[in-house]
């Protein structure tokens, strides 16, 4: 028995590899190589093949070949992956992980940082000998889910707060280790206070880590569980307490009064009750820019044949931030209250421009407030349906190069990646450029969910630079919070020349031409 490929067919694939040897090269470069294809060919198999047959001598790390040790992590098309598991596809681009110094080619230096960080977080238990302590199997579930983490650094390399503001956020990998200890019933060290101290609330919940984790660990979910523990133990930063106060007292995440929030609808004559509720959201109704989009959205939907209702000053916050900040009890109460209000007004469908609210109504309410049979759609879904059914047709506004910024709630929570692009494609004259990093790689998270102003603005600036790289004149996005953040970033970076516009606004303009 010899090792041969069991398939008769042979074909080759092309891979582009980042090459840089600081000893001899002034600049990094990219080179393309051919490798023989085999079903389920992995990146390591391909690199081994290339090194043997092209004598390319590409430096890359190998370890257990079992997806267990976390040594071989590289970036494949901008997303971290274990090279022993990532399936190599024709056209793939292999790069070293972002955020670490490159030793050579795909090999990064993570030694010093790892040692320092683990020492700092006193990783592991205090080490009092205690022998075998009985524990309930269910008590170790969360800890167990995080055990399979191989400390591969993939999540760090893609984490916006860690890349842009490492002093404020320890990074998902290290935080996951802290949370693993937090849910170990044998642990004695105060892991909750430590997690908060190390930036638990500076995670923007953008799910970049979770959607790219090679071990499919629900890192974001564990952050929320850890925040629930922080609430239970009352170890909260002041900003977070303020957010709870805002929502519970003023019914607005941003503490803006109901009259101001509803001001956009004054002259539109939208009825207060009806089957289809237009849910304006805190996000959109807090700022003047957001409110302008709301007016456009409502007009557009009415024009396209939807009969809307709107609760005006009585609209309440859906409670999403309560959930995401770990106020489990308050969220349950809030959700029950809002659900009751909606049922009383006879709402059958909610249409909202806010992806965060849509996610909350669609995914969280059935779990925490019981089933209501209320259909939930984003404004973009309605627009797309109208475009597809030709109920509306969009006209050219001249040629324009645009780039789309995916808000995390839209792309990673609701899974809407293709939909906004399809809408853009249906506007004549618009050409879409994609940022260098794949949509999943670097969204900035909802601007409202990172507690620290500094972290948020740094992420937004980094994101603006990425978006501007492709030479687009206009940034289109689909979240008022992200728009506001990007606008601030453009101002800070002196890039006011770049127009930042909500996709709803753009569609409304294309309807009017």
């Amino acid at each position, binding site marked *: 028995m010899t090792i041969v490929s069991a398939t008769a067919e042979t074909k080759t694939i092309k891979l582009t590899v980042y090459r840089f040897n600081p000893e001899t090269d002034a600049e990094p470069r990219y080179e393309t190589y051919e490798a023989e294809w085999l079903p*389920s060919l992995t990146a390591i198999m391909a690199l081994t093949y290339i090194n043997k047959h092209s004598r390319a001598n590409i430096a890359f790390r190998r370890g257990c070949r079992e997806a267990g040790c976390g040594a071989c992590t590289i970036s494949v098309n901008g997303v971290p992956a274990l090279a022993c598991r990532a399936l190599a596809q024709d056209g793939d681009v292999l790069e070293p992980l972002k955020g670490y110094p490159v030793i050579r080619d795909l090999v990064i230096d993570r030694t010093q940082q790892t040692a320092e960080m683990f020492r700092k977080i006193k990783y592991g238990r205090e080490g009092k000998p205690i022998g075998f302590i009985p524990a309930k199997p269910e008590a170790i579930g969360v800890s167990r889910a995080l055990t399979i983490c191989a400390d591969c650094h993939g999540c760090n390399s893609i984490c916006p707060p860690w890349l842009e503001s490492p002093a404020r956020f320890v990074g998902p990998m290290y935080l996951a280790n802290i949370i693993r200890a937090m849910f170990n019933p044998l642990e004695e060290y105060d892991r909750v206070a430590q997690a908060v101290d190390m930036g638990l609330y500076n995670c923007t919940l953008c799910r970049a880590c979770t959607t790219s984790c090679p071990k499919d660990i629900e890192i974001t979910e564990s952050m929320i569980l850890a925040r629930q523990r922080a609430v239970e133990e009352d170890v909260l930063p002041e900003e977070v307490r303020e957010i709870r106060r805002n929502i519970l007292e003023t019914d607005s995440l941003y503490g803006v009064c109901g009259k101001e929030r509803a001001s956009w609808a004054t002259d539109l004559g939208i009825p207060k009750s009806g089957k289809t509720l237009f849910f304006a959201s805190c996000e959109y109704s807090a700022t003047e820019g957001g409110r302008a989009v709301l007016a456009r959205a409502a007009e557009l939907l009415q024009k396209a044949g939807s009969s809307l209702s709107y609760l005006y000053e009585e609209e309440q916050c859906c409670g999403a931030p309560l959930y995401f900040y770990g106020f489990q009890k308050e969220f349950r109460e809030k959700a029950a209250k809002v659900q009751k209000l909606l049922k009383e007004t006879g709402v059958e469908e909610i249409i909202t421009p806010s992806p965060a609210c849509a996610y909350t109504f669609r995914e969280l309410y059935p779990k925490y407030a019981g089933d209501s049979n209320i259909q939930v759609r984003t404004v973009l879904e309605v627009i797309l349906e109208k475009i597809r059914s030709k109920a509306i047709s969009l006209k050219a506004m001249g040629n324009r190069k645009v780039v789309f910024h995916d808000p995390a709630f839209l792309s990673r929570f609701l899974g809407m990646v293709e939909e906004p692009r399809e809408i853009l494609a249906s506007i004549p004259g618009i050409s879409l450029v994609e940022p260098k990093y794949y949509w999943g790689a670097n969204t900035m998270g909802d601007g409202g969910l990172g507690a620290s102003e500094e972290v948020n603005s740094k992420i937004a600036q980094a994101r603006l630079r990425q978006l501007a790289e492709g030479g687009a004149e206009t940034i289109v996005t689909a979240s008022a919070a992200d728009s506001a953040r990007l606008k601030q970033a453009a101002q800070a970076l002196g890039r006011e020349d770049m127009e930042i516009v909500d996709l709803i606004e753009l569609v409304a303009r294309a309807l009017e031409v």
Partner: protein
Amino acid sequence: MPEVDEVIETDVLVVGGGGAGIVAAIEAAKHGVEVTLAVKGLIGHSGCTPAALGGIAGFYVRDPRDSWWQHFCDTVLGGSFLSDQALVEVFVKEAPMALFALEDWGCIWDRDEDGGPYLRQFGGHTYARSVSSGDRSGSEMIKGLKARLVRSPVRVLDEVNVTKLLIDARGEVAGATAVSVRDGKFIVFKAKAVVLATGGMGRVFPLAYTGDWNVGDGYYMAMLAGARVVDLEMLQWHPTAIWWPPGLRGMAGSEALRSEGGRLYNKHGERFMIKYSPEWLEVATRDFISRSIYREYMAGNATERGGVYLSLTHIPPEVIEKRLPSMFANIKSVGIDIRTEPFEITPAAHYTDGGVVVNVMFESEDIPGLYAVGETAGGIHGGNRLGSNSLPDLMVTGIRAGQAASIRATRLKKAGMVAKVPQDQVKEEMQRVFAPLERGDGISPLELRDRHLDLMWKYVSVIRDGKGLGQAVAEMDAMWSQELPKVRVSDGSKTWNYEWLEALDLYPRLFMSQAMALSALLRTESRANHYREDYPDTDNKNWLKNIEVTYDPSASSLSKMIKTTARPVRVTLLTPEEAGLPGLAD
């Protein structure tokens, strides 16, 4: 001529950064001596520990019938009576402590409803005595070990490739030489004790379930320094490595797949283990399963692609998801759902049962100050290691060797002894190490590596015979003397040079493979993991012996440099007669 770039003085040098190396370093550092750990890869991301799946044996107190003595008998009998019984005794008595220690270090094992440990029974163990963490016990363990390590004063050197042990005029350890993988610096370590924790040599085979760098460099360095290495012909075959889908080829189908009820079928859909072992079925020992699969291959019962089927489809899906989460996820990632369809497996090189000949403190019997731990130490597992015996092994051997090394270092310090590094050895090693970078032209190290892998698979793997082994020995002699001196790295860079690493690894690869082939040639019987087609029976009358290999520097060819000797097995507690081994008398 390059210069020594750095001299590092330390009391204890630990070589290797998998579980055993970390434990030895932590333990040594507890006793107030300076400890440096050098690892070819990254600390905590090296060797096999992070990828270990199954469990950790040694929880005897839950089943009232169980005891260290039962574990002792299981280990010795599972190893086909080749174990060094004094080492096994130490191992089984101290294994329970390892489990408790790990929970103190931040690990937590799966619990049952009553709060006690969920115990698994692995092949060859009489009772369920292994704790686990799902099917990622190694991952749980390495997290605890890393945690403990960062709290200890051990100096860790990532990506420093130790290439040679330095021995002083008295024949004791004086240190080691190394090259930094990152910048090619040549380093001389002066040390009072060296602990080898370099793992085994499974990667001399093309299909291996072991860390990618485990090519036997620890054994090679120990032999060159004058130490004996034992039981090398006993290379354990993991019976259920994945064959198809090929992207996972060589990855182990966890032992737990079988202990949770997985079944093996040949291409006719026949559950062939009924034929070979009606009593144990799929939980027979690993060597037995491997050979059974090979017998199926030889009978023409392999699948079209060349493996046999492993099926879990009769097991409730939720049991698979809960008890085998990472197997499920891994295989799913390349498109096969093990809840509903079988996949194909084949034996792959796994654990090197043999290793450096050591005493009960895991110090080489030949070189004072040289210790070997984990897979690098020989003796505990005899001819075949039982599942879930390797993780407790690395704890027990690591702790013992770490303690002994620190005691030795303290003693030498008090006596004012300073390690005298033999400069001629350093110079010679420097020349050897840098030569592949400096040659004008020559042979590709990768090409030689792959040819050697194929040779090993063909002649020295699961089924061996005298003729094939003889062929392998002759070919390896030629590779060593004619090709190895011509190996040339394609660029002369000293910065993380992939080919250079491979070129340096060729020395242990060829040297230790030859030692394995010669040991296999000497053992004219079949036993445990060693199967000779020309001697298919176990010969307890003549072969209750261990084969030791030593190095003869004066010889001209590789096969002559390695001397093989057979000596009687070391019996302390359980005699072959008491164990009732068949065929002892005529």
